[in-house]
């Protein structure tokens, strides 16, 4: 490290983020800022299209946008500098120099490959569990996806959190790259897989974040070993309240073509524009894997009791006394936000506008803020 107050260090390169394991480049579909604009940390800078989904890039620091280097509709490789932010008093010459270097890098395409999350597997109860880890900080965060999802669904959350914690995202049994056999498909089996993962990794204390079914799994894991779980962040969790969209769940489980699947997927988002063909294709590719249909059917039996919720996570939460935060999209059509009433008084609840069930994809900063708030204690 050079002198931390030298001017070079005060120029912050805004780079193309790596959202998800397969992301190699992104396209800036619109800039929300112009050169000369003053921004605060967390301000929205640009919309970025990743093939899979469009996400919002936020400013990593406060300062003035001194240069916008990548043009609208330009493809930039992951890691490439697309803008420069610096305090107003950093001289123009230094900014010019940095901009020139960055523009050359962008034009030549010679951008250093950004190390994405490190992939790994552990064996738990005869199953292989796959996970992706990003960050090296002392605190540990575990992200648990929902029904039919996988570790990649945290693409907009894992990266920003990795600055302050070691963030693991796992694939539950039956999902992603983990073994597709889910046994009896019970919440207990899934929570056992999570506990086994923590054992194998030697993690003694962890902040657990769970979405939907993963929220119920997180709660069950906390009920099992309350001392191990530092906090819970529940994102539209299953098992709270009495409302559940059984038609969506059955439709998702049964859809056998992209055409059948797509109308169900639109129920996941406040803005159905998020349902890209890539998203539907990726889900169909997952659904066609051997063993996935049985896994989804089995887990459906856990999630539903007739047309009513089949899980009581609220009961399990009584075993856990640590801090609980809840993030719920107001436009959730799968597990309506009214379910959050079951957590009032027990948890700090954030209702999020313009977000459906996939809050962590649609309004990821709401989830990042909740987890960060917990880490700050």
């Amino acid at each position: 490290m050079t002198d931390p107050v030298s001017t070079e260090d005060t120029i912050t390169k805004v780079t193309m983020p790596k959202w998800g394991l397969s992301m190699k480049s992104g396209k800036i579909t619109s800039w929300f800022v112009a050169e000369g604009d003053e921004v605060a940390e967390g301000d929205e800078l640009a919309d970025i299209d990743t093939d899979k989904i469009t996400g919002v890039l936020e400013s990593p620091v406060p300062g003035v946008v001194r240069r916008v280097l990548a043009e609208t509709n330009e493809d930039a490789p992951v890691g490439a500098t697309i803008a420069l932010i610096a305090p107003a008093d950093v001289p123009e010459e230094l900014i010019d120099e940095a901009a020139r270097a960055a523009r050359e890098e962008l034009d030549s395409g010679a951008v250093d490959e950004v190390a994405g999350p490190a992939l790994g597997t552990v064996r738990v109860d005869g199953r292989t569990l796959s996970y992706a880890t990003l960050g090296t900080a002392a605190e540990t965060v575990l992200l648990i996806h929902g029904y039919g999802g996988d570790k990649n669904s945290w693409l907009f959350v894992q990266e920003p959190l990795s600055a302050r914690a070691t963030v693991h995202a796992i694939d539950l049994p039956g999902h992603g790259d983990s073994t597709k056999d889910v046994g009896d498909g019970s919440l207990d089996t899934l929570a056992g897989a999570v506990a086994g993962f923590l054992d194998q990794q030697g993690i003694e204390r962890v902040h657990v974040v769970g979405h939907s079914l993963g929220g119920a799994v997180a709660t069950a894991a906390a009920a099992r070993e309350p001392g191990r779980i530092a906090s819970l962040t529940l994102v539209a969790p299953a098992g709270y309240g009495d409302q559940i969209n059984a038609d969506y769940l059955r439709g998702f489980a049964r859809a056998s073509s992209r055409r059948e699947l797509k109308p169900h997927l639109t129920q996941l988002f406040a803005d159905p524009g998020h349902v890209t063909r890539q998203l539907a294709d990726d889900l169909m590719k997952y659904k066609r894997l051997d063993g996935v249909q049985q896994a989804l059917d089995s887990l459906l039996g856990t999630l539903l009791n007739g047309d009513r919720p089949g899980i009581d996570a609220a009961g399990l939460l009584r075993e856990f006394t640590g801090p609980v935060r809840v993030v719920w999209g107001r436009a959730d059509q799968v597990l309506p936000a009214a379910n959050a009433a079951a957590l009032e008084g027990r948890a700090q609840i954030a209702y999020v506008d313009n977000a459906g069930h996939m809050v962590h994809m649609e309004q990821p900063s709401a989830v990042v803020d909740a987890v960060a708030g917990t880490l700050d204690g």
Partner: protein
Amino acid sequence: MARTISYREAVNEALRQEMERDGSVIIMGEDNAGGAGSPGEDDAWGGVLGVTKGLQQRFPGRVLDTPISESAFVGAAVGAATRGLRPVAELMFIDFMGVCFDQIFNQAAKFRYMFGGKAVTPVVVRTMYGAGLNAAAQHSQCLYPLFTHIPGLKVVLPSSPYEAKGLLIQAIRDNDPVIFCEHKALYDMTGEVPEDSYTIPFGEADVVRDGDDVTIVALGRMVSVAEEAAAELARQDVQAEIIDPRTTSPLDRDTILESVENTGRLVVVDEATPRCGMAADISALVAQEAFGALRAPIEMVTAPHTPVPFAQPLEQLYIPDTQKVANAVKKTLDWKK
């Protein structure tokens, strides 16, 4: 998880995974082991283009090299299928079908029907087709329309490594005879393929690209040709929707019709000769079922009605290319009553 492998490796992996999963799966044909039983066993080719490489060593006794007699080994495979095995017979070039066609169209294709559903014939005939390797008139044809014509056969044309693996696993598990057609110029194409086994159902087209201006239905190797043409057209603000039927029998009529109902224009791209082929078949389907939606005459981009030329420049001229596809699209866009 998915990683990048070639079309050749995808076919090989599908065979290996199904042979591991199911002991009744066997392979038979000419040079599938390649050198088996001779001192050259360890460096056996695994087929003329190396597609079955390594399987003979891994599954001793289950990869059978046969004499050069398609009528005998395809007949044997069909018979074995009726008695409980799941043979994958390799007809090295589709052009050789003439010598074993009775076994396929009059026997395998008819058993289920003639025995009132009591007999199943889970045989797969893998076969190479297509021009582009300068292999001349007897080793370059696209004869899948002949198989498509026969009720009782399923006909598959994988266009990418992902489709190749999932469709071949489906073919092996299917209880009907399946003709699995691999374009020889696609073997080195690479793409993302999951390591786990998976199946792609037959009769379900892939919408390779979305677009509102024109529907391009492309088969097998022509899918990537259509994609290149669509990329070129997109630069001129023309958005083409590309449909890859993946199987010509069964054919996913709904996806084609829904697309044409939206775009009002159809271009069918097929490397086969034009008479009695898929281009004509799909055109007839759309003319009959979606006539009211059409805003221009249907265009067919196919090979000419001639044998495949040996001379390289002529062979290149013979195969539909991106320019021909783009021109056909423009013709549908420019058409006025």
